[in-house]
């Protein structure tokens, strides 16, 4: 009987990366099974970008084990990089070159065989919906077009694994929606995607599985629904109140073991369906009852204070 082992596309085990003034990644354990889209969520400075750089061996871990597509890093990082497509957070397209030329250069860098190069570049242009703008210099493309080109550049060699570092940061909702369709198509084609983001909605819509990162390690892992259910329950009760009253409510909730988060003019009590009767009576009816969201989980698990 053949044994089909479902392989992990990415495995990080006890990975630590220290910089002189900060430990960016701190004993990170993360597995990404083949074929899924994993959303790596976390606030700025949680270690998401460092994790991405570790996977291309542009950062070298101080401790721990990293495997990408079964290849050991950093020893076999070049082979691993050949199998991956990387879309950086920072736009580093060649502005002087046309859309086509940008893709051609990466078709060469990714060693697409000569006879397939032209078709690969054409396909990437179509994917980025830039076929009509192939001869336009990148500096003259709009922000959304540039981002699509940046993504297509990482896909020109049809990789089985794609790293997307904050793919839609700083973009209009319209443009973001276009990029999402592109990412959904990748998943449909069975491409493994590791996507870092600090946009909750992005992860909720695109990711099969989410890993919440804080201070260089994973603090929660699961599908968006599971995470919400486990950490925020079914329902959230919001009480509009003064800052002082909010503090009182927070203290009462903490006593009863109910997680809370500040939501501007209100305080939100998570898992409100599980509130003890006594607490419910003490607080009175909430102003708003709403379903719990991944954002609630994000804030509760990664902390309210921005560092």
């Amino acid at each position, binding site marked *: 009987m053949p044994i089909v082992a479902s392989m992990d596309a990415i495995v990080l085990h006890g990975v630590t990366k220290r910089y002189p003034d900060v430990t960016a990644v701190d004993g990170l354990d993360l597995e990404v099974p083949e074929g899924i889209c994993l959303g790596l969520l976390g606030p700025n400075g949680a270690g998401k970008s460092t994790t991405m750089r570790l996977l291309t061996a542009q950062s070298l871990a101080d401790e721990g084990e990293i495997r990408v597509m079964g290849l050991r890093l950093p020893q076999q990082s070049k082979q691993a990089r050949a199998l991956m497509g990387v879309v*950086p957070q*920072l736009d580093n397209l*060649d502005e002087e070159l046309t859309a086509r030329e940008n893709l051609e250069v990466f078709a*060469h860098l*990714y060693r697409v065989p000569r006879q397939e190069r032209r078709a690969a570049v054409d396909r990437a242009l179509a994917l980025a919906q830039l076929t009509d703008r192939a001869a336009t210099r990148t500096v003259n493309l709009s922000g959304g077009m540039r981002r699509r080109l940046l993504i297509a550049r990482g896909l020109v060699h049809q990789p089985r694994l794609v790293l997307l570092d904050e793919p839609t940061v700083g973009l209009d909702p319209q443009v973001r929606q276009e990029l999402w369709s592109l990412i959904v198509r990748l998943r449909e084609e069975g491409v493994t995607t590791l996507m870092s983001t600090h946009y909750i909605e992005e992860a909720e819509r695109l990711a099969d599985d989410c890993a919440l990162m804080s201070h260089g390690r994973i603090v929660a892992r699961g599908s968006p629904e599971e995470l919400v259910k486990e950490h925020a329950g079914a329902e959230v009760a919001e009480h509009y109140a003064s800052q002082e009253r909010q503090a009182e409510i927070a203290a009462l909730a903490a006593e009863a073991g109910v997680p809370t988060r500040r939501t501007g003019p209100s305080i939100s009590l998570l898992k409100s369906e599980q509130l003890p009767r006594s607490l419910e009576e003490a607080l009175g009816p909430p102003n708003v009852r709403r379903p719990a969201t991944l954002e609630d989980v994000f804030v509760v698990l990664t902390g309210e204070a921005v560092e």
Partner: protein
Amino acid sequence: MMEFAPVRAVWRRELALYRRYWASTSFAAMTEPTIYLLAFGYGFGSVVGALYGYDYKDFVATGVVATAVLFIGAFGGMFNTFIRRTFQHTYDAMLAAPVDVRELVTAEASWLAVKAGVYGCAPMLVGVAFGLEPSWGMLLVPFIGFLTGLVFALFGVWVSAIVPSINTFDYVITGALTPMFMVAGTFFPVTQLPAWVAAAAQVNPLYHCVELVRGAVFGRLGLDDLGHLGVLSACAVLMWALAVWKMRARLID
């Protein structure tokens, strides 16, 4: 293992960029030596006349080959590399693909060296137009220009990886490149200089380039030119190691 495919891929990018700026580069490459030849060759040459049996403008035309090679190699190595690494983040994009730092450095430097080899011939061709006698040895000049260009391009890449900011290049240009440019027998023979300066010229790669170029153009290559070739080759190897070492430190953390 160092591979050729990534080097070729990086060249491919250079070629695409070169298509954008070839006209301005070529204009500068032809005009600058013309100005030198007119100014030094005629202006100065009318006073100096002949030098060690050479017509002074022939002496300058061959000397300016070396300075052209120096500037194409060193300036390209310093400024292009610095801007691409820090402002454009081009190298971050490339190193996420199957390319290693040493392949990247080799490709960038060798491209500049080819440019230095080709455009280094411009002053010689201008010289021919001004009466320098053509010789078979001139066919060696692009190769001498390539090797010297490689040394200075790698020097530039190394420097680009150790300077804290682009302004620091001023120290390198004034403190290192200008003296090299003057003390290499480009506009006057090093034997005219005080003994300690002449001795310093021996460790200046540009001096060895000038000697080889004159040897080739005037048809008097000898055994001592193997020494010049050896010094340039050794400098290339040393600079390659330094450039790769410092670039790796900057690009991989």
